Every structure is written in structure tokens, then in C-alpha cells.
């Protein structure tokens, strides 16, 4: 009889999943479980957690590569990296507190399984772009690997990216190998206040089109500025547009000055020093402005110029508060709770402007009733179902977590 299982190595994980497939027992796939309130609610009596698979197994700072067992706490990974002046460049965001969970619980494999990246994604790519290798167990209980520990690898199909963002529905990751980057020597932030949304996104895009390597480009509506932890910024009480530069100190000074000059027509530009910059971007990484609210929350990826149009169109149907990341291309949109989270309207808007929307925060019955992940066009849905079956023919891994029927 399977129960809540915490395998201590990949062989045990393999045995457990083979048994689950043989007995057609659905299992919830977990790291720490910190993101369990996200996705479609599942009806699984048993779970397999990677928390028993812990520890950093390889770290070569001069090759910018680290391997860690799946259940290694993200915090432990980041501490080890910080000790050598390095970091996970894609800046994984903290999701758990959005749904009432404790912060700092995430595991490293959970970060890749959900492919969550923060503000720096526009410059350096998402979690999926940093995953070099994976060892995992599929639904049949087969142990497999893909990729490796080197930066470049086109040997065979790229299952690392295939597993990224699959929310535990294809395989249980046992060990991940990923690219790491040096922590920049200096950070500075340029801030503009009170810009209308369309203009703000124009500023972000204009900054991204300079050679100064902007590594964060965000815009917050006033209602969300009011929730910032940073007191000085919160007190501004106006829409806030921010651009981050990271580099050697001489370069951030030079590039900051050039960028200010470039954007001066848009109004007064304030500058945050290194300490204030770090505090600001750190709280954005924790999604501070979206915490502590009972509003339903959508995460929408679209093209930057479409961002404000999407928000305006949604606002025509329902009250909506928005935090724009990725130069305007990622919209975190809070809407007042309803029984369907406005899904039909949100998806109609997306169909017009392009992109996809995921319902991150809503009550379980709402997440059961509407499509949490963007519904797929028929051809892609067919491929996705068959892909799921190639990894997990009995459909035991996180059944229904992403889509109702597979």
C-alpha cells in the first residue's frame, strides 16, 4: 500500500512509481509542497516528495555549474552560491506566500518544474534556459537522464526543457544540474513616478533597446505601490516605473548616466543606490506587492507593447490591479474574487492580444471549475496528451494538475 512517500534515492523513487503505475495509483508529486495551492486541485491519496533527496553534489564556480539533488532547499543552493559570489541569474520568484504559504520553503527542482523566473528573465532567460542536465524517474518508474554538466549539449532530444514547466506531470526529478552566474559588483535603479501606463511601458521598451543591458524593467500601479515594503517608495503614492542596471560599479555609474540622458524627456528620474536597489528588487522577487491579498491573481505573458492593452481590456470587465514585469510582457493582474475569476473574459482578451494566462491564486473550487493553465489549441493539446503518455502512460503523475483530462 502506497502512502506519502519520501524516497531517499532515485532507485527507491523508481520502485515507488513502478508500483504506482502497476496499481494505477495517482500520486501527487511534491518538493516541499510550497506550491500545492497552485494549479488545478488534485484528488490523490498518495504523494511522492523529493524532500529526502537532498544535497549539493557538484559545484564548480569557475565553470559556472552546480548540481543538486531535487529536494535541496533553494535557500541552501543560494547560500552556497553566494559564498562564492555567484547566483541563480534567472531570479526565481517566491510563489508560496501568494497562497498563504511560508516563504523560503521551495526546493531547487520545484523551481525548474514550474519554470518560474523573476525580473532578470528579460536579460538572462528563464529557469528553463539555465537547466543543463536532469536525472529523473518517469511514470513507468524508469530512471533516465538528459543533458549533462556542460554548457553546450545538443546530444539527443532536449528533455531538460521538456521537463521545465511541466509541474511534475511528466516525471519526478531526482537531480538537476544548472548554470550559475557571478553576482554583479554593483546595482543601481532608475525610477520614474506617475507615468500613464502606455507611456511607462514605452519607457521600459526604450530602455531595453539601449546597449546598457537593463536587467529589470517593471511598472507598478499606484494601488500596488501602496503595498511595497520599501517605505520611501511606498510613500510616493504614485505609479512607479523602475529600471535596473547591474555591472561593475564604474559601468553602472556610466550606464546610469547615459540611460538617464536617453530617457530625460519622460520626466524626472530618481536614482536608487545599491542598498535601496537591492531591497527593492529583492521584495519584487518575493512578489511583496501581491502578498496578503484575497484578490484572485492572474499571471499573463504577452508581448510588452500588448501589456497595457491587455490590462485596459480586462479592466473594462472587472476591477483589476496590475504589476508589469519583463518590460511589460509579464502582467500580474489581481481581480476581485468571483466564482470564475473572470476566466472567460481574460482568455478572450488574451486571444485578441496574444500570449497566455495562468490563474495563480483562487479558491480550490474556482480552480476546479475553470482552466487554470492556458487552454491549448487542438493540435497542441493532442501533442501534449501524447507526450504525457510517452512519459507516464498510466497517467499517475499529478493527474489533472495542469489540464482536466490528462
Amino acid at each position, binding site marked *: 500500500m502506497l502512502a506519502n512517500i519520501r524516497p531517499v534515492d532515485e532507485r527507491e523513487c523508481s520502485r515507488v512509481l513502478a508500483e504506482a503505475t502497476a496499481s494505477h495509483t495517482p500520486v501527487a508529486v511534491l518538493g516541499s509542497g510550497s506550491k500545492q495551492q497552485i494549479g488545478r486541485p488534485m484528488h490523490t491519496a498518495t504523494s511522492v516528495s523529493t524532500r529526502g533527496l537532498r544535497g549539493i553534489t557538484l559545484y564548480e*564556480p569557475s565553470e559556472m555549474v552546480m548540481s543538486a539533488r531535487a529536494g535541496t532547499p533553494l535557500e541552501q543552493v543560494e547560500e552556497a552560491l553566494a559564498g562564492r559570489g555567484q547566483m541563480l541569474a534567472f531570479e526565481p520568484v517566491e510563489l508560496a506566500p501568494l497562497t498563504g504559504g511560508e516563504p523560503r520553503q521551495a526546493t531547487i527542482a520545484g523551481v525548474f518544474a514550474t519554470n518560474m523566473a523573476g525580473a532578470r528573465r528579460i536579460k538572462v532567460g528563464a529557469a*528553463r534556459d539555465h537547466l543543463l542536465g536532469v536525472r529523473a524517474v518517469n511514470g513507468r518508474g*524508469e530512471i533516465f537522464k538528459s543533458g549533462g554538466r556542460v554548457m553546450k549539449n545538443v546530444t*539527443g532530444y532536449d528533455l531538460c526543457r521538456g521537463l521545465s514547466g511541466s509541474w511534475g506531470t511528466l516525471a519526478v526529478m531526482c537531480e538537476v544540474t544548472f548554470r550559475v552566474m557571478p553576482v554583479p559588483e554593483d546595482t543601481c535603479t532608475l525610477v520614474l513616478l506617475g507615468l500613464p501606463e502606455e507611456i511607462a511601458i514605452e519607457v521600459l521598451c526604450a530602455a531595453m533597446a539601449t546597449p546598457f543591458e537593463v536587467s529589470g524593467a517593471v511598472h507598478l500601479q499606484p494601488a500596488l505601490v501602496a503595498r511595497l515594503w520599501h517605505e520611501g517608495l511606498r510613500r510616493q503614492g504614485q505609479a512607479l516605473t523602475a529600471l535596473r542596471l547591474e555591472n561593475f560599479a564604474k559601468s553602472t555609474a556610466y550606464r546610469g548616466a547615459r540611460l538617464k540622458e536617453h530617457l530625460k524627456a519622460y520626466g524626472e528620474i530618481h536614482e536608487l543606490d545599491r542598498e535601496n536597489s537591492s531591497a527593492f528588487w529583492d521584495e519584487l522577487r518575493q512578489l511583496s506587492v501581491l502578498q496578503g491579498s484575497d484578490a484572485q491573481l492572474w499571471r499573463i505573458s504577452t508581448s510588452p507593447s500588448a501589456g497595457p492593452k491587455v490590462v485596459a481590456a480586462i479592466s473594462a470587465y472587472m476591477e483589476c490591479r496590475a504589476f508589469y514585469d519583463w518590460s511589460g510582457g509579464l502582467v500580474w493582474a489581481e481581480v476581485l474574487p468571483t466564482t470564475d475569476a473572470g476566466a472567460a473574459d481574460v482568455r478572450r482578451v488574451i486571444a485578441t492580444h*496574444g500570449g*497566455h494566462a495562468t490563474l495563480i491564486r483562487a479558491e480550490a473550487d474556482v480552480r476546479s471549475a475553470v482552466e487554470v493553465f492556458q487552454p491549448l489549441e487542438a493540435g497542441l493539446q493532442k501533442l501534449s496528451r501524447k*507526450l504525457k503518455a510517452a512519459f507516464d502512460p498510466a497517467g499517475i503523475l499529478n493527474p489533472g494538475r495542469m489540464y482536466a483530462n490528462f
Partner: protein
Amino acid sequence: MRAMSLVALPEPDAKIVARREAIVEDLRRLVGAEAVIGDEDGRRAYETDALTAYRRLPLAVVLPASTEEVSRVLAYCHQHGIKVVARGAGTSLSGGALPAEDAVVVGVSRMNRVLEIDYMNRIARVEVGITNLGISDIVKARDFFYAPDPSSQLACTLAGNIGMNSGGAHCLKYGVTTNNVLGLKMVLMDGDVVEIGGAHLDSPGYDLLGLVIGSEGQLGIATEATVRILRAAEGARPMLLGFDTSEAAGQCVAAIIGAGIVPVAIEFMDRPAIHVCEAFAKAGYPLEVEAMLIVEVEGSNEEITDLLSVITEIAKAFAPKTIRISQSAEQSAAIWKGRKAAFGAIGRISDYYCMDGVIPLGKLGEVLVAISHICDKHGLKVANIFHAGDGNLHPLVLYDANDAAQAERAEQAGHEILELCVASGGCLTGEHGVGIEKRDLMRVQFTETDLALQMRIKTVFDPKWLLNPAKVFPLEGRSAALEAA
């Protein structure tokens, strides 16, 4: 050039070959006579790619002008069980575009239009027959560029880059194809057209884009792509560092990265490579050193000067024989000309077999020693070129193609070198792909389970296994793996 003999190719399906004339007629009806090449001379032009030792005359060649035409051709071939080999510019070094006597080549070279350039959102939407450099050329006037830069970028198509997940010298900073493509329009083998991703970041659902890119034309034929275009840096400048040993050069790379500097490119050349390239490009490479690094950084003039002086200080700990910073745009161009022309320059003095293994940087010294032992054993010379920042090693095994025994020894040496790369913690191919060349070595890197899973994914997209047959997966064991599925 004589054919190498190590990689077996399956016997063509005689029934399909016998129907060649009728199939050509059918294809002409589907896409117009001018888009189908049926005569032998015409087909001969498509018999090989850049792995010229292998040649096969294709059944027919189709050059469609639209997604709709690709769809019609694939649906027809799917219905009649005819194999299909997709082709960009035919620059594959691994035989990825090698045709077969019973397969139709679908070349995308006529589909090379730019559909949309959007500077605000920093994307370009293009047909995939456009050349790699063609994308950068279109956006250059606005100081933008498309980042992946394989050495063949003047000729190779985006289609081929998508198939092989191509990289290049500058991918240390900017990533490879999979990091720079946001969306694809793709025709599946049954003729269905799917759109994966789009003008936004990160696809919904499974990362099919990630699976398709680098699948060597075995999952579908892409016809349009949305790619990221980036604003170019204010400037870039390379420096040359020469060392007495390869180990010192490798340690210097590790120290630069360890100091928190990620240059846009770090290229390594050993003594034989330096000499050949200098003779060709007159780049001012140091001839008295055993190993040389080209380190390039980007930024404003002042930033570049600062960074290169920091790198110079770091390098001094490894007793460099040469430290030379480029003083002009002409010098920079010459330095890169030598490197980018390396394969051609070496090709002028000898036939060579170009390997594409990847190793952890820390193993560079010992791997180079072992490579020279392998080549000595086979009585062959070798020159090594290495994307040092990301561990991608290109040993060029020199041989005489008119000497069949030597050609076979070169291929054997190459296989031993790749096995060495895997044993050192690396992999068989960093950017050239598996193709036919490394197909039979896949078991060196993967278990049967690993391969069976990849083959099941192939079956998801192409149930009859008609796309780019006889590539990537070893021929033996295919049916067993799929039956077990």
C-alpha cells in the same frame, strides 16, 4: 573524395524507389513543376551536406514556397509512407541533412522572407529559409542583431539552426538557438500545422518549443519563427593571450570567470591551429606559443579598456608569453577572421574530420594530452579549437581523403575522442548535432532507457518514423525499444 565506411545506412525501400517517376509527378501536381527537382543532375546537387564523405541521391527534391505547400507535401508523403529529409542550406557537419534514395528532400531555402520586425518588442518574425546572418543584416541599421552566430552563419539557414540548436562563438553570453527563439510555426508529418509559442516569453503548457529545437528535423518541419533580436553593445574588442601550455590557458579562463567576468567570447587555439590560421588570415597571432586565447569583451571604449586591463592582471598569474589588445577595428576584424576562417584555412592544407565534443573546462589539459595520444596512435595530426568558456572542443583530425585506410583511421580516432569527452564528464556534440556521424555512439552517452524515452517522443510527433530517418538513434534496437513502449 572516398566514402568513409563506419556508419551503415539502411537499404532503400525498393518499392518506393521503383515508384520514383510517379511520386515526382504527384509532387509536381501538389506544388507546381518548378518547385520539384526530379532529374538526376538536379538531385545530385542535394546528395550530401558538409559531411561530404557520405552521399546519397535523393528520390526527389521539393522546394516549397509556403507553409501550405510544405503541409501538402508532408500529408502526401505520410499517406504513402514516403520518408522525408528536411534541408536548410545543407551545411550540417554531422550528416544531419544527408538524403536517402527512398526519401524526398524538402528544402526550405525559397521560404526566406522577413515577415515582421518589431523593435519595441525586440522580435523578428521570419520564414526559416533565411540565413542566420540574414536576420542580423536586416536589423543592423538599427544596431540590433540576432545572437547565435555559428561559423557558417553566412550560409546556414535559421531552419538548420533550429534543427541542430546551433550555437557559436558568442553563446557564452547570449545563449544558443533554443534561448533565442520564442515561437515556431511547424508542419507535422501528417500535414497538420501547429503554432508553438509566439511573440511572448515562455510557452503555455509543455515546453514543446524546447523539445522541437535541436530535434534534428525528426519531429516536424518548421516554416516560420519568431526570434529575439537584441540591441548590440556599444562596442567590442578582443585581446590575444599566448601561453606555454594548454593547462595555463585553461586555468586562465577559469580565473577570469572565477573573478566574476563573463566575456562575450573566449576562444582557445592550440599551436597547430594558430599556425594554420595565421598563415591564412595574417591576424598577428603569436607563433611561438603552445596555446592562445582570444578573449572578447563588450561595452563603451572606457568599459572595454577597464575590463581588458582587469583580465590582463588576472592572466599575468599564468605567465603569458603574449598579451596583445586589439588597437583598431581592423585588428579586431583580423583576429576574428583568423578564428572564423579556421575550418576553411585548415581545409586548404589538409582534409580534416571536425569533431564537436564538450568537456568540463577543468579537464582541458588532460583531454588535450589524451587526444594527441589517440591521434599519434593512428598516425594522424590534430589541431584543436575550443570555445573555452563553454567547454565545446573542436579537434580537427587531419587526414588524406584519397587514402581510404587513413580516412577510416581518422573516423576511428574521432570516435575515440568523443568517447573520451563523454568519459571526462562531457558529451558527444555541443553544436553540430548527432546526425549520422555520432548516431552509433549514442549508447556511449545514453542508456537504453534514455534512448527509448527519446524514441517515444519521436513517435509522438512522427508515428511512422518518416522524418529524417536513419539519424540520431542507432539503427539496431530501434524496434525493440519501441515495442517495449
